[in-house]
């Protein structure tokens, strides 16, 4: 841990000003990831700007039938909010698939969006890592990579995004509302997280002096079918090897909308809307799910140890779609996969 200054801000503008003035400053919300990273010397902020006093906890319905969730709403607040439980059960389920009750009680929506990879090289300052220290190399590429990316990786970085919540947000369709010195803007979730390319140190398109105010979920269609299926190395309290968030609307056995996102496979929640089109207008059958899953993984690429994730991802997508179609979403308390 490095010494830092601590500043508790009373206004959004004060936070933005400090971020603009001090490139080494970082925002603190729940702290479940940032404080860990500081203890391991991976994050070395010069100032911690505590934003927990800011009025960003509200969860409210928008006029068009969507839902706005404040940046500081905790994961638990969101998962157990009646509107989320009723209209966005996929989001509730994904949140409950992650971490532990204790962590979810303090971890926030914005913090979840910004959490960093759990790649063990990234976490170990005694090893090279392009994401942590650009230009030092990526030992995972030829090292321990059984849980690294199979999609969208680069020569410089094969890390994955660890969030469960973001996978559901990707499937639902979400805008991230941010504010900077020049005012507010919205970024779609698809454009918020980025692929590593040759700048893996940048996880997102958020600017250094911008703050997340909240997220907006697109209006949820009635009677949608869903499932969040997370496959991991043990049955609880582990990051995903592969996870799939599936949302389906089915009329008379025919799929009218299909949204599918994958977690644990890439530097960002992975969604391919072009592939989803294939499902629309076709029966909700295993054959169609199989075909779609194969398309989704067409551009996947294995490292030395993670080839199994390609077939596992394919099967996970199929099962999640089956669970959604049959209205038997995966339970996050009973670990039995139906």
């Amino acid at each position, binding site marked *: 841990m490095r010494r830092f200054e601590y500043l508790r801000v009373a206004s959004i503008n004060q936070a933005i000003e400090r971020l603009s003035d001090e490139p080494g400053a970082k925002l603190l919300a729940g702290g479940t990831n940032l404080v860990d990273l500081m203890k391991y010397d991976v994050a070395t902020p010069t100032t911690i700007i505590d934003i927990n006093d800011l009025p960003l906890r509200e969860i409210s319905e928008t006029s068009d039938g969507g839902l706005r969730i404040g940046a500081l709403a905790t994961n638990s607040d969101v998962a157990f909010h009646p509107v989320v439980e009723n209209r966005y059960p996929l989001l509730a389920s994904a949140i409950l698939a992650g971490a532990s009750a204790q962590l979810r009680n303090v971890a926030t929506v914005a913090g979840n969006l910004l959490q960093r990879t759990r790649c063990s090289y990234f976490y170990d300052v005694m090893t090279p890592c392009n994401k942590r220290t650009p230009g030092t190399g990526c030992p995972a590429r030829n090292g321990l990579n059984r849980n690294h990316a199979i999609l969208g990786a680069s020569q410089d970085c094969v890390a994955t995004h660890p969030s469960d919540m973001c996978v559901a947000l990707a499937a639902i369709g979400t805008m991230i509302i941010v504010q900077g010195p020049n005012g507010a803007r919205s970024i779609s979730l698809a454009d918020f997280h980025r692929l590593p390319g040759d700048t893996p140190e940048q996880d997102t398109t958020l600017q250094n002096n911008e703050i997340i105010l909240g997220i907006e979920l697109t209006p949820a269609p009635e009677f949608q079918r869903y499932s969040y299926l997370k496959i991991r190395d*043990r*049955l609880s*309290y582990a990051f995903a090897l592969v996870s799939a968030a599936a949302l389906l609307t089915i009329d008379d056995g025919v799929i009218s909308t299909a949204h599918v996102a994958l977690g644990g496979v890439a530097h960002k929640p992975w969604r391919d809307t072009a592939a989803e089109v294939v499902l629309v207008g076709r029966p909700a059958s295993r054959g169609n799910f199989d075909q779609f899953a194969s398309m989704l993984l067409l551009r996947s690429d294995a490292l030395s*140890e993670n080839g199994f994730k390609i077939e596992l991802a394919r099967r996970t997508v199929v099962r999640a779609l089956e669970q959604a179609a049959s209205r038997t979403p995966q339970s996050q308390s009973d670990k039995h996969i139906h």
Partner: protein
Amino acid sequence: MDRGPAITGKSIPRIDGPLKVRGQAKYAAEYEVPDLLHAAIVSASIAKGRVISIDSADAKSFPGVVAVLTHQNRPWFWPFSFLYKDPAGPPGQPFRPLYNDRVHFSGQPVALVVGDTYEAARDAAALVRVSYHREQHSTDLAAEVSRAYKSPRRRLGLAPTPQPTGDADRAFSEAPVKVEATYTTAAENHHPMELFATTVEWGDKTVTVYDKTQSPKSVEIFLKVAFRLFRRKVRVVSSFVGGAFGLGLRPQQSVFLAVLAAKALKRSIRLVIPRDQMFALGYRANSIQTVSLGADKNGHLLAVRHRAIAATSRNEDAQDPMLNFSASLYRCHNVKLAYELAKLDTVSPCDMRAPGAATGMFALECAMDELAYATNVDPLVLRLANYTERDQSENRPFSSKALRECYAQGAERFGWAKRSHAPRSMRKGKELVGWGMATGVWEAAMSPVPARAKVRLLADGRFEVTSSITDIGTGTYTILTQIAADALEASIERVVVKLGDSALPFNPIQGGSWTAATSGSAVQAACNKLKKKILSRAKQAGIVGNGQSTELLSPAALADLLRLSDHDNLSATATIINFPFGKKYTGATHSAVFAEVRIDEELAVVRVTRLVCAVAAGRILNPATARSQIIGASVMGIGKALYEDAATDHNLGRCMAHSFADYHIPSNADVYEIEVLFAEETDDKVSPIGVKGVGEIGSVAVAPAIANAIFHATGQRIRDLPITIDRLARSRD
């Protein structure tokens, strides 16, 4: 044998439970000592080479930092490595932190930062810059197989790997049915919940060391010799130990560095090893094993060959009884065993719960399952067909062996009779169901080193029992209280047990499952002695009562006695020297473990939905704490089977597990039903109190039972631990 009025044998709740739940049980890092300094380790990033320079200027100028100790400025200590030997250490040169510029393993301490506060020490440790000259390292056991060797020197106290009997090569080649396969097990870390920690209270005359250890006495002797503390009184206190699993058998890096710094600075020091650095303290050796079984068509064993290659460090030949049970568990006249080591650039491996047995028996018991399928014999029937009443490796009977009862009771409880033999023949919904079983065995021995205990009548009529043995969470406080209460015909409220202090009567290390038998026998002997003394003093004092000992030991009678006699003398000390077992019997605990797994057929997600563990361990002093031992060991067995892997990046020569996010142990969700049965086993030979010990036996058979259940469910024989989803997927595709 005096069985007393039987408080022993009852499920008495832990005596130390209330202290622990109230936070009043003090652990090594919790003692308040005046003017305490705090230390933090700077560890090596390379696996092999030399430290060229250490730039500690920034760390030294950091506010609150008192000193930065390195191999260059440390106080003098002995250059002779034999002076750093400890009773649990293997042959070789013990690792000495900050000895010289050599780096032996990644994560090795290369500097120690000492500060006024924990935060100052930790934060400044991040500012120390170390440059290295790297040398070619090797951390990959598979790459070192060709350099495997039989250790020329045997570890003190370790029984030798049994000599060959018959002609196993020939018997195998001529056997009608042959099974031969290679198995691997991963390196595992112990990770007790309590971090390794030492608080040193440095005084001119006395050095008190609060240490997390399984042996306060050997730490005391080690410190006196290694740091030449002969002119000071050294006292090592470990009143409570939050688990250790073998990692605390030897004086750890924490106590070495803390005392080194205390001596250098003549100050009191605390050092806590954080979780990430705990990975560099020791590990269960990973192994590569080949088992060849020859049998007749009915599965009767004709030949057993078992070769194991286990990891060790460059500086020591770490050894454990990996193959010591392969010759004696089943009846077979042609046995050949080879236990070899391969040197790696790692810290020395060390004992971890059921050391050796948990590794060797995994391979043997999976091979037995393979034989069951090669001969089309039910796995339990196969084991009964090869049952032996004698230890054929030593050609002598067992002091007792209720393994047959374990098989019968475990099978009954589990419902084994309803199993269909064919792989993939049982399923429920989308899941394949598998039932597997395995046999467990562990040595039941008393410590080869004598144990002492003292018991004293207190002025208030209670009895105080003292012993240097630690309670590492197993329930030692409780069982010793029960033993004393029975011997002294007193209620447990009238017995006060004090443990874990090198100033108390000498006891050997707490390990090998021998504590209950050894320290328990010493306590019983001391109590019997005191009882005799009290009865004779009562007689002298004319206290007669109704003539019954119970009445003479009652609080009222003792109050009379205390009034009439000098109570200072009312104490007794007893020493137990290894029970005269001679060479007539083999002592062993046994278990039969039955496992049910359910595996999603497509996704290969494994759930261990049921475990039944039937254990024969002689007399059970406390079914509640004994059951906890077996359940805890079974959870470790699930971890060994499915999750635990201290994975090393061989390019960097570095273990890349740094936390419980990287190093998976079972979570609550991974543990379903675990049932524990104790088979009745009376044994008047194994120890004076008929006890065999239950610390290790629970860890032996769980992993092979699960691996065999996975085969039964899927038809896939995974011979590499842990059985992760990728291994199942690869074997399937």
